[in-house]
Structure formats: structure tokens, C-alpha cells
């Protein structure tokens, strides 16, 4: 069972995230890390690999510092990693990102039985790259898995929607994106941290993947950020301490603001 997990190096959501002069996400001025939502995909891959004598490859696209995201996943227990690093990729939209990921996955040897991703990145938060990647790879996709079982050449997924909880099946190879409900990601152990130092990390450029640099990056993006503006900070409102009348005061506020 060969599993590849696509992960993203993102600016820390706890920090003050902002934009660069070219209207792209500022990735230099803010500390980065493995997207929290991708940890669930790494954990799920490790669990499946442990049960099926499998191997887990971590794949990321990003600048030099994105190696930190790979390191974290290797420390958790993944076997190897691939880092697609090419200056031309800067500013790529989801469409171009899915193209590069697809080409990188097609270059893997052996080919994966299962592609896992998080439900969305914590910076762009679009949540569309997994689906685009499946579309490009011609794989069945099941997104937002809250439970995942792999057996008999099939994935079976539980997905909790607003109207119903569904069971969805697809034959391998397949792509599955997982939610933060699926597991509790492990912390790297000391042994894991030491072992990670010896694990192989391949670095690939666009040329290695046979991707034309003109198809990616900011100028090739099919969407453009025209402008951005910081949301004005909310004016701190009225705070009252409950002295037996807090609920009444709350209701008075609701009445004054026409919510009743």
C-alpha cells in the first residue's frame, strides 16, 4: 500500500497574516509551519500504512522553508518526502497548484494506491485543490472524510453533511480528503525526530516534472487579486458585569438594536 499525502507549508494562523506587494500571501514575513489540517491526513496515512505494511510519501510545493513542513511529517513517521521547489511557482493559483501536484504524483515510483490531503489549507482555505487534483489524475475522489476504511481494493468513507451522514465507496487508486474529525494527530517522538534526519527527501523542479514554467506562477494565474484591505478593527463595545441583572441588560441591548 503506497500512500502519498499532499501537504502545504502555511503562515502560522496565530500570527498576523498579511499580503506581499504583489498581492500574494506573505510567506516570508510570517513564521510558517505544516498546515494544521494536513496533520490529520498525515496521521491517517500512517495509521493505514501501519495496518497494511505500507509506505507514506509526503509531497509539498513551496519555497525552501517549506522543507519544515516535510520535516514535521517525517518526524511523525512518514517514510520519504518530495519537495517541488521552483521560483517560477510563486503566486500560482489553485488551478496551477493542482497541475504541479498532479505531475509530481505521476512521477512517483511506485505509483500511489491512495492520495490523501487535508480538507483545506489554513491560509487560502479554498478547499478545492484536492478535487482539482483528482480531476487531473482521473481518480475517484471522496472529500471531507470523517472516517476512512481501506480494504479489498476499496476506500469506504463516512461523510457528515448537513442533511445526512453518508457512506461513500470508491475503488483504489483514489483520492480522499480528511476533516479534523477523523483522528488525533500524533506528536513526533524523540525517536521519530532522530529517525527523520536520515529519511530521503527528493527535490524536484518544474523541469524535472516536464511542466512549462509559463503555465504556473502569478502571471499565469486565472484569477487576480485586484486589491486588499485590512478589515477595520471592531470598536470594543459595552461590557457589563453581571450583578443579577446581566440577562436583562442583554435583552435591553437586543431591543435597542431592533433584534426583538
Amino acid at each position: 500500500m503506497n500512500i502519498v499525502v499532499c501537504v502545504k507549508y502555511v503562515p502560522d494562523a496565530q500570527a498576523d497574516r498579511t499580503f506581499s506587494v504583489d498581492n500574494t500571501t506573505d510567506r516570508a514575513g510570517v513564521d510558517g509551519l505544516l498546515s494544521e489540517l494536513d496533520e490529520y491526513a498525515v496521521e491517517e496515512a500512517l495509521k493505514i500504512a501501519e495496518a497494511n505494511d505500507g509506505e507514506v510519501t509526503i509531497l509539498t510545493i513551496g519555497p525552501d522553508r517549506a522543507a519544515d513542513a516535510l520535516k514535521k511529517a517525517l518526524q511523525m513517521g512518514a517514510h520519504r518526502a518530495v519537495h517541488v521547489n521552483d521560483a517560477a511557482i510563486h503566486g500560482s493559483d489553485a488551478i496551477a497548484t493542482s497541475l504541479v501536484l498532479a505531475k509530481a504524483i505521476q512521477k512517483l515510483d511506485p505509483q500511489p494506491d491512495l492520495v490523501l490531503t487535508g480538507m483545506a489549507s489554513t491560509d487560502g482555505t479554498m478547499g478545492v485543490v484536492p478535487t482539482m487534483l483528482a480531476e487531473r489524475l482521473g481518480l475517484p475522489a471522496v472529500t471531507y472524510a470523517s472516517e476512512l476504511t481501506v480494504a479489498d481494493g476499496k476506500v469506504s468513507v463516512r461523510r457528515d453533511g448537513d442533511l445526512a451522514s453518508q457512506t461513500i465507496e470508491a475503488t483504489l487508486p483514489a483520492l480522499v480528503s480528511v476533516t479534523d474529525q477523523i483522528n488525533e494527530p500524533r506528536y513526533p517522538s524523540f525517536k521519530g525526530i532522530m529517525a527523520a534526519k536520515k529519511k530521503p527527501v527528493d527535490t524536484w523542479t518544474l523541469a524535472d516534472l516536464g511542466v512549462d514554467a509559463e503555465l504556473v506562477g502569478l502571471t499565469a494565474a486565472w484569477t487576480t487579486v485586484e486589491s486588499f484591505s485590512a478589515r477595520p478593527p471592531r470598536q470594543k463595545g459595552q461590557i457589563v458585569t453581571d450583578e443579577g441583572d446581566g440577562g436583562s441588560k442583554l435583552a435591553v441591548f437586543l431591543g435597542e438594536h431592533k433584534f426583538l
Partner: protein
Amino acid sequence: MAEVLVLVEHIDGRVRKTTAELLTIARRLGEPAAVFVGSNVAQATDVLAKYGATKIYHSDSADLADYLVVPQAEFLAQIVAQSSPVAVLIPSSPEGKEVAARLAVKTDSGLITDAVDVQLADGKIVTTQSVFAGSYTVAATATTGTAIITVKPNSAPPQQQPAESVDTPVEFAASDLAKTARITASSPKAKSGRPELTEAAIVVSGGRGTSGDFSKVEEFADSLGAAVGASRAAVDAGWYPHTSQVGQTGKQVSPQLYVAVGISGAIQHRAGMQTSKTIIAVNKDEEAPIFELVDFGVVGDLFNVLPQATEAVKTAKG
């Protein structure tokens, strides 16, 4: 005038409010045409016409019901090729975003997700998005192909503008690839009788401070006719279903009024509610970061404050 396609969100032909919002937005950009997938299109026709749909493309092919989103994306791609619309508007639900993602790849088009506004400015379709946990607002355009835009609920007040809807049946058969992931079982969720979280005008959410007892939160919500949400801490503790989670990994809501009860206000939660018009918090801890966001806050025990507020609301409403 060029067409603007709107993917209709409905349950057995009962059209949801988001569709009226999308048709209202579509009228700003061109000639709205509804795309209806599934059965009971006849039941939807009146509503779609009332909000200005000039055409209703539809197919009741079984392929569109049994499988996941792929056939829907193929169906839309077929209509895009046929009618060359300037934009396709799709509800920003998890399913809608998947359809949009596939459609963008299939039609070589730019994709914008989670728009909170869409306007025509100097002949360009300009979207507004709220990003980085609501701390920034971004104006963006799709520059290649057909602008494919997923739009969040409550992005426009629905306005009626009746039109003659031309019934436009479409022959459709899904590809074999579209049939590779299949729904094998489905158990409907129990209905709460409350408004849908992302569509509600008022949302009351409970967090760790409830200690697992949501009864006071629910009673207060019901007095206001509000939807009930929960913080990640409350969901992770198993106190409330994940589908009610407000936050980065749950629902992003932007109601007229948001009431956070026993919720400290971590970034994970703020990402889901920061763009609400008016925010109220009730929390025992006066240092809770949620109080930095509020228009009105009560420092106190929710088990004392909420019942009193509920009674006062009921009295005021008569």
C-alpha cells in the same frame, strides 16, 4: 446580454434561499439562467421565475442523483460549452465548491471561492472575499475563461424580478469516470426545527463554558428564532454535532447577530464568525479574547445570564 448560470440548490424541488440570492446577484452581471439538477423541476419553476431566471436548464438523468459531484460538473461543463456564459454562480457549500473546482479544470476557467459580494465594475466581474480569518477583505477577478464563482449564503438580500422562464431540457449522460465514487448508504440527520446555521439571521453558539449543557443556549436561541452553533472545543468534547461547528474547520457564518456563549474566542473560532454584523458575548472570564470583538458583552455565569435574558426576550416579544 450574455447568460449567467446559477446552479440551483434544492431539496426535491424545494428551492433554498441561497438560490434566490444567487439569481439576484446574477441579474447584476447578465441574463440569469438556472441550472437544475435532479427531480421535481416543475416544483421549482415558479420560484426560479420569480427571481428572474430566463431559462431553466435541467436534466433528470439518474446519473445526476446516484453519484457524487462529478456528473454535476460534467453537466454544467456541457451547458457552459453550449451557452458561453460570462459567469457561473454556485453555492459555497462543500459540494458546491467541489462542483466548481472540477468545472474550472474542465473549462479552463478561473475559480473564486467564498465570495461575499459580486458586482459588475467597468465591465469586469469583481468579487469580494473575506480572508485570513476575516482580518482582510480582498477584491478579485477571474481573468481566464468563464468566471466560476462560489458565493456564500447571505451575500445579497433576495429581490424578486419576475421573468418568463423558458423550460430548457438537456440530454445528459455521465462519463464512466463520473461513476467511480458512489453513495452506498445515507442516514438523514434529525431535524432541529431551527434555521440553517449559514443562512440564519441570528446565531447563538455555545462553547466550553456550557460544560456540555446546551439547554440554556438552545432556549435562548429559540426565543430569538436563532440557529445554534458550537465552538470546536464543544464539538471535540462530543457535546454538539460537528455540522454545528462554527470556525475555521466548521461553518463560516456572517449573521446580523452572533451571540457567543462560554466561548473564549480563539482564532479558530473567530475565523468562523468575525464578519457578523453585531456580536454579543457572555463569558465568566473578563479576560476572554472574545470581548475584544463584541458590541455588547456580559461578564457572568451563562447559567444565570441566559435564562434571565430568555425570559426578558419572551416578554418583549409578547
